[in-house]
């Protein structure tokens, strides 16, 4: 327990503790469960904020418990982990509020929120893990914690989705497990070191490292939904809205991307990745995924399916950024980690609202919804435009830096891919927006929520609306105030500046 | 002649016979299916082992090795207690399944499972019926 280790542990336990307590809470204890939930989320937010400020000042935080002779369970807080941890903490708080509203009166909520908190602790664990083995431990824990949420509804469809999800993730988990054991055998259980710790191994074990990289990519690729391994994500959309919002927009998918970022930057290091030609391979896969995701999104009529396919392609932006291995590319990739999280969660919240309030699942049913639910439709439009990458919004910042990164790394054809994908984004995001505002609703709305739990003061339950608007505002500010200090972009530049000694980087 | 006598010293013939008895018992165990016959086969294998042990003890001129004899005595008593319990089990199996032949395969999974922790231990019907006469 070296210095400041207790803070990391406290962050982890702030969601694990309430989570386990909620498990054993009988169903009717509504008040205590909400208190525990929000209390946990709040404490985590405060602790992460404190950690953020102290890491900004440059303090060092580390916690290591001996697990096996020579192998330790290490938690460490560097700038990159803070980025992901803050994103998770903030969005967890918002999604908890949303989930409480969404699951009003539905059965088995203790079990839901128990696993929900387990998920977030696993995500924060992934963010704070100091070496590959700890990352693996939390990564597999995330699989176990998310499966019950995917099958929460208990319908045959949900269980089939769950089985597929487990099939993909467990198999890839085993490949990852074997790869990490092999790597630890070769290079020892080293903590993450910016610029990679493989050292002379890169020269002696050329082919082994290539094979290991492919295995690691398969391991992380499933959660990061790279093309051949992505088909579980759209099918897992059968889960309730808060699950698909937090997990499939933020926790699970980002965990995969975050793992790839760690491997490329902190295990192999940018130079070794470029030398072995791995970065180039990754760029190609990322590009394919971006295009494939967008095309698939076009073809589905179901709103959540479309958002799922858009997540598949958006996450590959992050992978693309990191794979470009140039400073600007990495900045583009990392900042998209935050922007995509915030924007996508807005879209999922809106989709959840439409489904919960008016029972709308298909895009074709969206005609004239703007008139019935103006605020949610506004948030949806902001999210959609952000995704497309219009200048004032967050999406633009990412695509701008990715473009510069591509030029810097001489991958000119990547620029074409970016432009094409932006057009495709527009192609599948604009029709719902246009339908929402300009469409005519001939038949009266089927008031699903009102029947269910009586009239609401605003257009829908306040606990559904407030989080949506909050997150929409965040995505707007992320774009507008990109230049300000403590904005996502600024923090990412700090990361790249401090942690990545990439040759020839002129701030 | 002398070589033959030396070869056929008890220290060699009896262990060999013991080994043959062990093999004979093993053969019987594999071939026969009736449980009582299988228990007999196991007893014969046991006697084979003890014959090898006492044959070894008889090697050399002096009195046979007391430790080996003590082991055999212990072995015999263990054999009789195992046989007694096995026979009690055979009788119980015959009472339940009506035959004392062990079917080769394991019983099917759908066999009725009555869990002891649930049923109160009422004196079994047949016990009552017998005692009433």
């Amino acid at each position: 327990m070296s210095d400041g280790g207790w803070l990391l542990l406290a962050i982890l336990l702030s969601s694990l503790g309430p989570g386990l307590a909620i498990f054993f809470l009988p169903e009717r204890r509504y008040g205590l469960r909400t208190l525990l939930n929000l209390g946990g989320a709040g404490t985590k937010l405060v602790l992460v904020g404190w950690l953020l400020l102290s890491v900004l000042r440059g303090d060092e935080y580390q916690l290591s418990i001996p697990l096996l002779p020579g192998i330790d369970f290490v938690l460490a807080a560097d700038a990159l982990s803070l980025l992901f941890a803050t994103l998770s903490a903030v969005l967890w708080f918002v999604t908890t509020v949303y989930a409480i509203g969404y699951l009003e009166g539905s059965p088995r909520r203790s079990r839901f929120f128990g696993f929900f908190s387990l998920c977030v602790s696993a995500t924060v664990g992934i963010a704070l893990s100091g070496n590959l083995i700890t990352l693996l431990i939390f990564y597999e824990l995330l699989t176990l914690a998310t499966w019950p949420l995917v099958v929460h509804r208990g319908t045959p469809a949900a269980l089939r989705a769950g089985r597929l999800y487990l099939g993909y993730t467990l198999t890839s988990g085993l490949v990852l497990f074997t790869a990490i054991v092999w790597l630890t055998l070769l290079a020892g259980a080293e903590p993450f070191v910016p610029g990679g710790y493989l050292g002379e191994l890169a020269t002696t074990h050329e082919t082994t490292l290539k094979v290991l990289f492919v295995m690691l990519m398969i391991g992380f690729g499933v959660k990061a939904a790279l093309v051949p391994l992505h088909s579980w994500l759209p099918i897992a959309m059968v889960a309730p809205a808060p699950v698909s919002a937090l997990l499939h927009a933020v926790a699970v998918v980002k965990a995969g991307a975050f793992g790839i970022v760690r491997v490329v930057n902190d295990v192999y290091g940018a130079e070794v990745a470029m030398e072995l030609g791995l970065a180039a391979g990754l760029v190609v896969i990322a590009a394919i995924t971006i295009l494939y995701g967008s095309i698939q999104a076009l073809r589905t009529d179901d709103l959540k399916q479309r958002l799922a396919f858009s997540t598949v392609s958006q996450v590959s932006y992050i992978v693309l950024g990191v794979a470009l291995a140039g400073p600007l590319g990495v900045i583009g990739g990392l900042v998209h980690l935050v922007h995509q999280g915030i924007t996508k969660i807005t879209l999922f919240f809106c989709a959840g609202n439409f489904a919960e309030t008016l029972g709308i699942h298909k895009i074709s049913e969206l005609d004239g919804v703007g008139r019935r639910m103006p605020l949610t439709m506004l948030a949806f439009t902001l999210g959609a435009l952000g995704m497309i990458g219009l200048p004032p919004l967050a999406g633009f910042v990412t695509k701008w830096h990715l473009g510069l990164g591509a030029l810097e790394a001489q991958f000119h054809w990547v620029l074409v891919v970016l432009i094409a994908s932006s057009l495709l984004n527009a192609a599948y995001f604009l029709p719902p927006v246009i339908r929402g505002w300009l469409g005519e609703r001939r038949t009266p709305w089927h008031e699903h929520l009102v029947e269910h739990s009586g009239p609401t003061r605003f257009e829908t339950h306040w606990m559904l609306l407030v989080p949506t608007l909050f997150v929409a505002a965040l995505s707007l500010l992320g774009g507008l105030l990109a230049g300000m200090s403590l904005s996502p972009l600024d923090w990412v530049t700090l990361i790249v500046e401090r942690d990545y000694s990439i040759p020839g980087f002129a701030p | 002649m002398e070589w033959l006598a030396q070869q056929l010293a008890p220290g060699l013939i009896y262990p060999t016979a013991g080994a043959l008895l062990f093999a004979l018992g093993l053969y019987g165990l594999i071939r026969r299916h009736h449980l009582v016959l299988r228990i007999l086969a196991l007893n014969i294998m046991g006697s084979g082992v003890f014959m090898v042990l006492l044959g070894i003890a008889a090697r050399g001129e002096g009195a046979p090795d007391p430790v080996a004899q003590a082991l055999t005595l212990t072995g015999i008593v263990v054999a009789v207690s195992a046989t007694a319990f096995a026979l009690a089990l055979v009788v119980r199996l015959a009472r339940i399944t009506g035959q004392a032949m062990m079917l080769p395969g394991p019983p099917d999974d759908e066999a009725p499972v009555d869990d002891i922790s649930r049923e109160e231990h009422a004196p079994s019907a047949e016990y009552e019926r017998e005692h009433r006469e």
Partner: protein
Amino acid sequence: MSNLLLVIFDLVLLAGLLGVAWRCLASTDLFRAVVLFITFGLLLALAWVRLEAPDIALAEAAIGAGITGALLLVTLERLRSIAVERRRGRPDQPPDPAGADALLHALHDPPPPRRTFVPALSFALVVGGLMVTALWHQPDAVGLEPVVDEHMGVSGVDHPITAVLLNFRAYDTFLELAIVLIALLGAWSLGRYDRLPARPAPGPILPGTLRLLVPVAIVTGVYILWAGSHAPGGAFQAGAILGAAGILLVLARPRDLPMAPSTPLRLGLTAGVGLFLAIGIVGLFIGPGLLGYPPEWAYPLIIVIEIAATLSIALTLVALFIAGRPAGDDH
């Protein structure tokens, strides 16, 4: 010359043993198999006498042939009565006079199928052959006999086998008594004792002979127990003889067994094991170690343990013969 005679005797005896064993395992009628098995036991006792191991011969005859034979015969009788009972339970079957074909059914094992003959025989021959070759390669190693003689002075008894059993390797003997007890606990856990199906032989002959034989058996048993400290004999053989006497008593009056009160019966059964451990624990603190006796107290302690062991073994063997929990145990 006499060595040659002995060799001939050995060969004839072993041939007889193997022949009887083969016939016993090959016979289709169980009653014949059991009778042959008892003969096998007696021949075995003869073999142990030939190998100058009188203790083992005594034990083999009393336990191996006697008690095991009795257990087997009573099991056959129980199987027969179960078969008759089941047949009586099925009205559709033709009534059978004295359960003759039931006897046929329960105590008859059809000859095994031909196809398993070759693999079984070859497997057994391979195992036997390997063992014989291993045994033939063994040197004429001298066993632990000299070591035992060295320590005989301290062991408290003059007979080497009793010294090994109750002093040098007391732990094994203790566990052996425990195994006999566990076998009984196992038999008792299977179910309550069911009335012995043996049909009492009418007429005064059996009770009369018993009145003559049982006292003689008890005197012999006690003699063998006492003789154990300096001559072949000891607790297990004595226990077996007393057990045999008990079984004879049970056979004489199968219907109305005495309602043995539960606690004294249990105390009797565990006397051997309990006393052995108690003295062993005392030995742990004041003696040389667990299950060890202070040298000067060795002889009396061994005698006390032997008496308790004989009592326990006799009771356990009789209870195993009855093979059912006494009714008293369940109230």
